[in-house]
Every structure is written in structure tokens, then in C-alpha cells.
């Protein structure tokens, strides 16, 4: 089999893995080949609009496990291939030298045993780091069930490690990934957290102590293959951030590949909007100081397809709004739909120099489309805007229809669960007034 065919098979088999970021570690060049940039660098975008940063391949797609959702499971009849450690290392170097990629993302099917598989992956990474002096980014998957010694070795060679938790609950995991177990996943995850802490302590004591996975650990789970609620998934992510200090939790909308009675039927569309909402909420957890319990609840356990989680939260907490742009604290500015971290910082900077009005906000580059229903400038709402829950809900939900997100068929069915706000007389009256003024 030539390299071209191998690469096709092993890329095709790896493409459902979501994490492709190269962020989280900054490392200057060492005079040899390679460096890493903290913000991460995207080198290209594939036709599905996802960033390509790393050479993302499986070491091999031979697998002795039989996970129901996976294209590479042993019961599937698909073309199989395996790199040799050297082939993979050489390919990485050639691509890297041409600036096609930031580095390597290596994962694998399970051959013989988790440890045997990890040993092969370690060989490839060793050639890169030790033989070629490669100083670029490497992200390695840890196969569930890998022994702690191998995790330790891999962790000191690469920038990021991840153990996939695969499914959002133990029940689903037992059902859909019978060869994996909760313990097999959480033990390595805990080991990584522990190892990172040890290495952080050592570095304080002696500067040249080896760094363990400096870009931290991440995980991913499949959304829509099993029936957990959004609230459940969000709370799980929160717990992973809190307990295991994960850098990222990735979600991947389930794409049916196998006909299996345990899984949604083959014609199910991937729940892309749901995945998108989860990422938005995840963002709120990581950068905006939200807790999962503020965003969803047992009673209200699914995202509103028509509203992003922040809008949804704000509308349910209308008693906190409007806030005054010129005096509100930073934390409150961050809670306004449409104002992000950059926007909030700019407001803080600019309002020290001059009182801000709506024109001023526009000059700062703040988009008022959503924010206008939640703020005042110098005590006044934006002209023609009433700060009112019903009004805002109506305007914001009709806006979301224009989002370039295609809502899939199943998701439109969910829409009926949400009561559309009723047009009331007062509102219609206002609309008419507005039209008259505009003319």
C-alpha cells in the first residue's frame, strides 16, 4: 500500500475526532525545527468549515474493540491500514516544513492491547522529538485502559493529552462501548491531572524539571447517540473542568455510520444546532463566570433552539436589566447578550475617557443587535427600544431565524415545545408608531 492510500484511510478514520486546536502552550523556537503559539494557529479550513491545524490521523484503524457508534469497530468491513512510527514521523516533518500544519494529532484504534497501542504511538512521537528535535505541537490521545507508566512517558513528550469520555453517561458507555469502562477512562484522566500537578510543583523547585503536557488535557463526547439532556451534559462538563482541571471539553454531533438497534437510525441528521448551543454554553462556563445551574435546570433541561444560552439566561433574569453601560461592573457587562470579553474591556477603557452613548458604543465596534434590549447609556435606552421581556424575546427569536444555522428536521420539532411569545396589542401599536417615525 502506498503512502497516498494509507493517508487516505487513516485520515478518513480520524476525521470524526473534533479537537484540532493547537492552543495552550507557547514555546519559542530552539534553533532547530518548530515552535508553538499560545493562541493556536489555523492553517486551513476544510469544506465543513472546521479549522485544520494539526495533521490529524489514526496511527492505525485496526481495532479489537467494537464500539457501536464507530466506523472502525472490529465488526465493520472497512479498508484498514497502519503507519509505521517512522512513516508517521517523516510525514509530519515534511508537512511541517512547508507550514501546512502546526503539528501532529495522533490517535489510534486498539491493536492487541491499550498498552501495545500506546507503545507504538510513543515510538512515533519519540522519533519526532528525540531524533528530529521537533519542537512543534503534538496532541496525543490516551487509549482508555493505558497503564500509568506509559501515560507518564507520553505526557512528557507531548503538549496535550486527552482521554475521550465518549458518551455522557456510564449507562450509555456500557451499552455502546462495551469494551471501555468508566474506570478505564477516569483512571487515566485522574492520573494525568495528578501528574500535571506533580510536574508543576517540581518546576517551581528546579527549573528544568520535565513539563508534563503543558497544554493540558481535554476530552470529547458524542452528542445525540444517547439520550442525555443538555443539562446533564453541561453539568458533566462543569464537573470535568472543576475536578480534572480540563482545558477543553469538546462535543461532537453524532453522525450515524452503523446500522445498530441501539443507535439512532441511519437517516438521522447530525444535531449541529444542539452541538453549537453546547459550545456556546461551554464558553459561558469557561470565560463568563456562569455555572451550569444558571443556564439550565432539571425542569428546563434542553436548550432553546431559537435563542443562544446567554440571551435565554438574560431573558429569564430580566429583573437584573437594564444595566447602565457607564457604571456597570465588568462582571455585569459580560452578562449582557452581544457583549463579549473584548467588548467589555473596551467599554471599561473608553468610559474612563468619556461618557458613552450608543454612537460611542458603535465606534467601539460593539454590535447592538442583541445588547440593545438590556442596556442603557446615560440612563436612556436606545431610541425606539423598550426594555421589556416580551418585546425582547420576540425580536431576538425572530433574529435567530436569520442565523446562518440550518435547523435540522428533528430540531424543528422541538420548536413546538417552546411557546412563541404572543403579539400583544401594545407591541403592535409600538411597531406602527415606529414605522410612522421612520417614514
Amino acid at each position, binding site marked *: 500500500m502506498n503512502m497516498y492510500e494509507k*493517508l487516505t484511510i487513516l485520515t478518513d478514520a480520524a476525521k*470524526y475526532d473534533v479537537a484540532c486546536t493547537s492552543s495552550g502552550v507557547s514555546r519559542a523556537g530552539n534553533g532547530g*525545527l518548530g*515552535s508553538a503559539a499560545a493562541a493556536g494557529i489555523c492553517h*486551513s479550513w476544510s*469544506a465543513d468549515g472546521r479549522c485544520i491545524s494539526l495533521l490529524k490521523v489514526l496511527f492505525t484503524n485496526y481495532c479489537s474493540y467494537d464500539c457501536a457508534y464507530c466506523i472502525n469497530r472490529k465488526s465493520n468491513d472497512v479498508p484498514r491500514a497502519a503507519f509505521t512510527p517512522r512513516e508517521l514521523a517523516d510525514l509530519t516533518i515534511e508537512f511541517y516544513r512547508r*507550514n501546512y500544519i502546526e503539528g501532529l494529532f495522533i490517535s489510534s484504534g486498539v491493536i492487541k492491547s491499550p498498552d501495545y497501542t500506546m507503545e507504538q504511538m510513543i515510538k512515533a512521537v519519540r522519533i519526532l522529538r528525540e531524533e528530529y528535535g521537533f519542537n512543534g505541537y503534538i496532541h496525543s490521545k490516551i487509549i482508555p485502559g493505558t497503564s500509568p507508566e506509559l501515560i507518564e512517558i507520553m505526557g512528557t513528550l507531548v503538549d496535550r493529552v486527552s482521554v475521550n469520555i465518549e458518551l455522557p453517561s456510564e449507562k450509555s458507555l456500557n451499552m455502546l462501548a462495551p469494551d471501555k469502562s468508566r474506570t478505564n477512562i477516569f483512571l487515566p484522566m485522574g492520573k494525568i491531572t495528578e501528574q500535571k500537578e506533580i510536574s508543576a510543583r517540581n518546576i517551581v523547585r528546579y527549573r528544568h524539571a520535565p513539563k508534563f503536557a503543558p497544554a493540558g488535557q481535554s476530552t470529547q463526547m458524542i452528542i445525540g447517540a444517547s439520550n442525555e439532556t443538555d443539562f446533564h451534559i453541561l453539568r458533566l462538563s462543569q464537573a470535568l473542568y472543576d475536578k480534572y482541571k480540563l482545558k477543553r471539553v469538546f462535543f461532537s454531533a453524532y*453522525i450515524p455510520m452503523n446500522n445498530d438497534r441501539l443507535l439512532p437510525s441511519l437517516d438521522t441528521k447530525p444535531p449541529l444546532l444542539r452541538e453549537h448551543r453546547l459550545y456556546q454554553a461551554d464558553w459561558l462556563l469557561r470565560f463568563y463566570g456562569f455555572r451550569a445551574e444558571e443556564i439550565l435546570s432539571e425542569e428546563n433541561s434542553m436548550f432553546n433552539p431559537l435563542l443562544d444560552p446567554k440571551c435565554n439566561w438574560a431573558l429569564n433574569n430580566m429583573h437584573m436589566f437594564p444595566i447602565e453601560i457607564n457604571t456597570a461592573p465588568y462582571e455585569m457587562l459580560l452578562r449582557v447578550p452581544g457583549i463579549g470579553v473584548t467588548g467589555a474591556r473596551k467599554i471599561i477603557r473608553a468610559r474612563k475617557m468619556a461618557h458613552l452613548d450608543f454612537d460611542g458604543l458603535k465606534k467601539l465596534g460593539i454590535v447592538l443587535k442583541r445588547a440593545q434590549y438590556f442596556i442603557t447609556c446615560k440612563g436612556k435606552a436606545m431610541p425606539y427600544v423598550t426594555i421589556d421581556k416580551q418585546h425582547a424575546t420576540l425580536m431576538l427569536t425572530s433574529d435567530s431565524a436569520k442565523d446562518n444555522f440550518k435547523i435540522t428536521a428533528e430540531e424543528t420539532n422541538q420548536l413546538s415545545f417552546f411557546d412563541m411569545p404572543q403579539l400583544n396589542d401594545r407591541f403592535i401599536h409600538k411597531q406602527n408608531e415606529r414605522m410612522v417615525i421612520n417614514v
Partner: protein
Amino acid sequence: MSELNHTQQVIYVYDGSFEGFLCCIYNYYYNRLKPVQIASHMNFVPSFYDNLMIETDFEQAYRVRFAIEEKIGHYNLKFLTECFYTCLEEKEMYMLRYVIKGFKTGPRIKDMLTDNDVSILTKAHRHLERESHHFLGFVRFYKAGDVYVSKIEPKNCILPLIASHFAQRFANQQFMIYDAVHKQAVISMNRNYHIVNVEDIQLPPVSEDEKQMQRLWKNFYDTIAIKERFNPKCRMNFMPKRVWVNLPEMQGEENTTNLPQEV
């Protein structure tokens, strides 16, 4: 430097260098001539205004640079130096007004984001930074002999901002990145790099071996996309069509909004 009563309106014509521009500022304060435009001699179009040719004098440039750093601060000096690389039209006039206001306000000028000049320059600068960051990814080398060669066509003049990243990363390889729009190239060898102005240059051809490598890369590119998630609009947002010509993986790529036909 005090406020002057400028009476006559002219166009400043300078040599297009940053030092030349600093001399324009010098002239603004020491001649009683207010510019309506500051034009580089390269893109200067004659008009009914009078011209004032600004000679580049390093002594003057140094004094202005020093004054900016003293009065408006190091941050703003760096900011202005970089603004000079932006593709903002009439950037010199915005920058002159920024400096004038800066001498009055001091370092805090950078936070006057509701001021028109500050706001426009800040946005142009942000655009430069973003484009620079994107090109850290969009540069593609091909190997010609011992040298790795790349051609880019950015909107802003980004080489001064990105050169050191590549020089560090590819410390043990010789490379050249040629900016065909601004006629500049960075040439790097053993971590030492130089940015040079180049007129027309003939880039070496892409060898057969190299084409093989590009095919391998395109193959990866095509395979990694998930067809159930096809979203060319999103791709276009991140990777506008104008950068495609220099990306080997985008050759022969169509921007259709339909799914590719299954075979």
C-alpha cells in the same frame, strides 16, 4: 510643540518611508502649512493643491520619534509604527491627527475609542493584527533546491509582523516569503532574517517531487472534511477566496453551496 495657525493648505509628498512620515509631522509643526493630504511619491496624483515636497531627514525623524515616545508613550509609538503597515487609505492623515491629539492628551489617547481618528486607526490596526495572525497559517512553502519558497498576497503589509515567527520556527531551514502585493520579501538563514524590497522576481518552478507532496497534502485536506457537515459558507468566512490562489490544497476547489455529488 504649540498649536499653530495654519493658513495655507497643501499636499505633503514624502518618500513613503516611516521616517519620511515622521518628517511630515515635523513639518506640520515647523512650517505653517496644514496638509489636506499626505501622499507617498509612489501613489501621488497631481491636483490643484500646492505640493510640499518633504525631504527625509533622519535628524528630524529622530526628534519626532523621541517626542512621541516621551509625550505619548512607548505603546503609542509602537502602535503608530504598526499603523503605518496597514492598508488604511489616507492612513497618514489619521496618524497625523492621532499624534496631534496625542501631544495634547498624553498616553491615554489610546483609550479615546469614541474619537473618530482613534477609532478608525484602532480598527485598521486590529485588521492588520488579524491578517498577520491568519497568515501565520496561510503561508505555504514549497521546496526548491535547499530553499523553501512562499508567495503571499495580503492586504496589509504584514511581513514585518510575521517574519520573526517564521525565522524562529524554521531556524534550521533557509526560506523566503515573497509578498507580491507590497513587493517585499523576507529572506531567512540560520535565524537571521532580512526584509528587502524587491521589484519583479522570478520564483523558482515547483518540481515534480514537490507536486507529489502537494498532492499528498491536498489528499489529506479533502479527506478530513465531513460531508454530513458540509458548510462552504463558514469556510469562506475564515478563508476568503482571495487567499486560495497560494494554497495548494485549494487548487481545483469549487465554492459551491451544494453538496458534492456522490459517486
